[in-house]
């Protein structure tokens, strides 16, 4: 794949955001704010960090990326289409009958996904299992997992935090979408997570705190994690839920609600204005 400047990656992330709101309008359902919030992280991963090959998705030495919080799959699907895992036109079939893009990630329909996901709290354990046996076989690839902050309420997740810490799974990097919202409201009201970094440190993880919309910071953090041999690394990516669409930003009511066509028109105008462009939609 050709290399991109950060400026180009920011432009791609804006295209991904436009894809996301159009997909949700067409589907009439889905999770907009989490998807918009993680667009920059996913673009950084697929364009710069992950060593993989969209033409050979089962290449055995590829870096793995597990999306634990499967509900933000619109962002994953949009980025995967931009790097040519499948044709872009599939995006508008999100969640429709027999579509390769099921409403939550379904590997039966899209084998290039690493896992079928959606039910929360499982992804870190799956990624830990992969990282554990990869080390057993002296494989060099890295395993990445994206988790939401809300799914930190799950016991299964913390069981896996302990397991990865115990086993020093240094090829494992988790990126937490720290957007502070979940379905019933703000995370610190629903079930407080702070001090989150200290919790990970106490489980023998390395912690890196970043701005989840700064592509350079995202890439730098992933590279830094590559150089940490003692522990697994968690990158706490501070994100704005709904980033790029002001009327959705930081609003838990937009967690699982599709926009209507007027809202999408407004949203696309907002997204296009993110870098100062003034064109209308």
């Amino acid at each position, binding site marked *: 794949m050709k290399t991109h400047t950060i400026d180009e990656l920011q432009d791609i992330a804006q295209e991904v955001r436009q894809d996301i709101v159009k997909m949700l309008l067409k589907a009439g359902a889905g999770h907009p704010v989490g998807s918009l919030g993680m667009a920059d992280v996913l673009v950084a991963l697929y364009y710069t960090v992950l060593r993989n090959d969209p033409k050979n998705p089962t290449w055995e030495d590829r870096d793995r990326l597990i999306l634990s919080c499967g509900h933000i799959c619109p962002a994953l699907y949009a980025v995967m289409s931009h790097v040519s895992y499948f044709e872009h036109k599939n995006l508008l079939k999100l969640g429709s009958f027999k579509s390769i893009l099921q409403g939550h990630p379904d590997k039966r329909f899209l084998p290039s996904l690493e896992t079928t996901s959606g039910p929360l709290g499982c992804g870190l354990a799956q990624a830990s299992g992969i990282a554990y046996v990869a080390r057993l076989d002296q494989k060099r690839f890295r395993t990445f997992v994206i988790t939401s902050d809300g799914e930190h309420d799950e016991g299964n997740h913390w069981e896996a935090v302990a*397991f990865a810490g115990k086993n020093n799974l240094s090829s494992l990097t988790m990126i937490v979408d720290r957007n502070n919202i979940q379905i019933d409201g703000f995370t610190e009201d629903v079930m407080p997570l702070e001090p989150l970094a200290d919790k990970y440190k106490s489980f023998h993880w390395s912690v890196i705190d970043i701005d989840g919309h700064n592509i350079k910071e995202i890439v730098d953090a992933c590279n830094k994690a590559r150089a940490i041999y003692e522990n697994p690394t968690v990158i706490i990516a501070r994100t704005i839920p709904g980033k790029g669409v002001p009327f959705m930003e930081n609003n838990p009511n937009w967690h699982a609600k599709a926009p209507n066509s007027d809202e999408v028109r407004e949203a696309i105008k907002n997204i296009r204005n993110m870098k100062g462009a003034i064109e209308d939609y």
Partner: protein
Amino acid sequence: MINQKLYLSDKIFKKDIEMKLMRDGFGLGLLEAGEKDPRIVVLSADLKESTKANYFAEKFPERFIEVGVAEQAMVTIASGMANYGKIPFCTSYAIFSPGRNWEQIRTTIAIDSYPVKIIGAQSGLNIGHYGVTHQGLEDIALASVIPNMNVVVPSDFDEARKATLLMAVDNKPYYMRLPRIESPVYTSSETPFKFGKANILTESKNPEVTIIATGLMVYEALMAYKELYKNGIETIVINMHTIKPLDEELIIRNAKLTGAVVSIEEHQVIGGLGSMVSSVLSKNFPVPMEILGVQDRFGQSGTPKELFAEYGLTKEDIIKACKKVIARKNS
């Protein structure tokens, strides 16, 4: 008479029949499977000795993964390992796995049909002393209801060993339940064993009832067969070691042959072997049927013998049920 084609133990009805743990059959089978295939890894949720995963752990420490008392993590970690290309065996007690981690098994193992093997030891009332909280009586239902899942309930040491070796080379998810207590080794290493093909243990010229049993209840059914035979009632005893896929053809054929069926399992009757057999028969060839098992109740402490008597899982209960269905058939 006993089916000669199955090479069953010649001590089948003798007092000195060998007694062994099915868990040992599993543990030794796992060791053998591990020697043959380096892809096999074994996970334990803090129960390696009582599940007999310790034989494997001692020989292959690098392929033995201790996850602590964390059954949800165990199966989701195993999912990742299988996703990479390993063949994981997850060992715990039936009540915790698939009891506590059911959704994780469904989502991360069964949907994509990863070859993860879930081993539920200490299932059933036979664990006795430890009481209601540890008596897994729902595991067959929980595992069987999941698409793609295969469900096996061996009936003695040798079968547990054979089942372990066979599931290790089948690229699909499996659940296998194992009891705690020793039981008579009535089969032999020669006895044929194939998933989805039930074994007909007894033959008869004029059978009046078919007894379909699974797990520890198979030997109980053989005891009932012997006593009924003395009283002039001939029966066919079937060892239904595979609950899923269920040997429907054999069930229908034998229902046609005898016109009456009794099922018995050390499990809740709702969602268990009996309900699956009756579903097959009601679609294909309805006959009078009695379903023995735990009748929608919880267990309690006691000896296995006391508990089997309390919950209607004895030779006498089978005999009574057989007479009842024969009477219904003839009325």
